[in-house]
């Protein structure tokens, strides 16, 4: 049964566009999926290295803008030189978006990891705010508040089958699902590897990790680069799905959304961002019929406080605990294993 569960989930997820009639729900699924990918990338930093970055939306937005600009082309003057870029195919934008976001992750990571704690949090917010102001004010490149519009959808080339352009929602749904799976597999492989263990070690005790020869800054920056590239990919998906982006994509509230998805589900767990993402992705759908937008946000904020109060570790670890207790002493070993996987490294 336990082995069949992922397969069942996969079948359900794969067939959704076949039986789901409501296009609005499908739209929510796509945007939620995109934010889940972003939340998963944030979880790499927040959950596994223990750094609360509140500027994560910067990478999401940089990926979105880089991808859109690669696809649309631009013609700007930079330090007296004219820089012209001819439009590239949209799918190239995805890779350029990830690359540019990853590079920003390197630069920002290098600078921000000089400080920790409250200072780190404030510095990361500052970076996100600078990127927002650049997007708003560099009108020649980004159109500023007028937004980048008519961003074309991706065109996928299949060898021998010709090209396929993603015009409808179902196609985007499958693309988001596929990339989400890729991100999930990459993160789970990474976390289980030597690199992942080093990251967890430095979360548990940075001084101790340093003393056993773990180059803390190197691993933190590596996590930041991977996490930023993934968030950039999610941003690219967002831009090409919505076909329009404006500087509001950098707003602090999007970072908060990603953070609360991770915290609700359980930071440092693989399934956490997915569970939290689904809850907060569908919260507006549930609240919409009977609450004004401002009221929705009030409930959102209140829920955030309640979750942090009641389930500071998140839903997944709480569930694992419950299952471990419920299965009783005879299956204590597997229970302990399960509980152990929630917070690796704590057992020592």
């Amino acid at each position, binding site marked *: 049964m336990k082995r069949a569960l992922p397969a069942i989930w996969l079948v359900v997820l794969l067939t959704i566009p076949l039986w789901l009639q409501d296009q609005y729900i499908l739209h929510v699924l796509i945007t939620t999926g995109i934010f889940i990918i972003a939340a998963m990338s944030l979880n790499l930093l927040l959950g596994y290295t223990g750094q*609360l970055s509140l500027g994560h939306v910067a990478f999401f937005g940089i990926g979105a803008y880089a991808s859109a600009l690669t696809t649309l082309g631009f013609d700007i003057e930079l330090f007296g030189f004219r820089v012209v870029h001819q439009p590239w195919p949209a799918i190239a934008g995805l890779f350029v978006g990830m690359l540019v976001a990853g590079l920003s992750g390197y630069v920002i990571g290098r*600078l*921000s990891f*000089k*400080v*920790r*704690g*409250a*200072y780190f*949090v*404030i*510095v990361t*917010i*500052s*970076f996100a*705010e*600078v990127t927002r*102001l*650049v997007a*708003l*004010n560099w009108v020649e490149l980004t159109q500023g508040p007028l937004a980048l519009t008519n961003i074309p959808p991706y065109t996928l080339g299949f060898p021998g089958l010709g090209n396929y352009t993603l015009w409808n929602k179902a196609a985007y749904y499958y693309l988001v699902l596929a990339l989400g799976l890729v991100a999930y597999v990459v993160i789970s492989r990474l976390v289980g590897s030597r690199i992942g263990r080093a990251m967890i070690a430095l979360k548990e005790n940075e001084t101790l990790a340093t003393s056993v020869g773990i180059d803390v800054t190197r691993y933190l920056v590596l996590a930041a680069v991977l996490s930023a590239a993934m968030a950039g990919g999610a941003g690219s998906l967002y831009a090409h799905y919505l076909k329009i982006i404006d500087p509001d994509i950098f707003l*602090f*509230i999007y970072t*908060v959304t990603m*953070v*609360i998805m991770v*915290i609700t589900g359980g930071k440092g767990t693989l399934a956490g961002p997915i569970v939290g993402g689904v809850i907060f992705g569908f919260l507006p759908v549930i609240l919409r019929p009977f609450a*004004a937008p*401002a*009221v929705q*946000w*009030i409930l*959102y*904020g*209140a*829920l*955030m*406080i309640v979750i*942090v*109060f009641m389930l*500071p570790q998140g839903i997944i670890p709480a569930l694992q605990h419950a299952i471990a207790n419920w299965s009783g002493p005879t299956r204590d070993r597997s229970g302990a294993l399960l509980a152990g996987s929630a917070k690796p490294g704590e057992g020592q």
Partner: protein
Amino acid sequence: MEFAATVLILTCTYALLAAGIVILYKAGRVVNFAHGELYAFGAYTVYLVVAALGINFFLGLVVAIIAGALLGAVIELVLLRPMRGADIDTVMLVMIGAWIVMQNTELLIWGGVAKAIVTPFSDAPLVIGPVSISWLRVFVLAAALLLIVTTYVLIHRTKLGKAMRATFQDADTAALMGVNIKGIFTATFAIGSALAAAAGALLGPVFLVTPTMGDLASLKAFAIVILGGLGNITGATLGGFILAFVEEIGAGYISSGYRDAMGFLIIIIVLLFKPTGLFARAERVG
């Protein structure tokens, strides 16, 4: 000279904002994301008193400060007291939740349209030689200075201040010495919130009052404490001055669109060249 006057006024109001952040951080390692909302709360309270109830602006200021202190105390009692001992990130998330709730409550009550506060000051400016400055700004400057000095005196010259400083240094030892530390935490939060509300009440008439006015205020206060260190009010004042100065230079010589980016750019430059901060001695791992 007018440049100097603008910088001076901005310095005082920024210092007022940052001072609140600093004492709250010192008291309970709380990075107060709701600070900007207390700032907006102060502005809306003055608006309520002046425009809706038709009462005097100065009384409105007093009401705003008292209401800000009360709201701060409530936040401390309801949200922060049960969280004592929780790690700094968790407390931060709770305060972000409080920020979202407060901002949208303001939006719900007052709507998104900006409000203007009418003050009893005449439009004719005060002219001293080549400088002309509106009476409202003169008053804002004087009131902000008075509040900063009062806070400084309160913390460094009174018995309550002594108890506060003892609690900041070592809460457990302070408690052993007979200090009511729970009361001190509440009082500190009330004072910090009152400062934010006062800043909002003073700047509300200078700018416009909107539900999102607090966002930038919070971010700027954060930028200032990065510059000046989360350590003391003097650092906050110096940080406020640097931010005000650079913003005005940036707005004047680069582009007014990037005015608000200046603070963040200074943070990045400070981190590049002096990661321990401009005035801080200890390593920044708090």
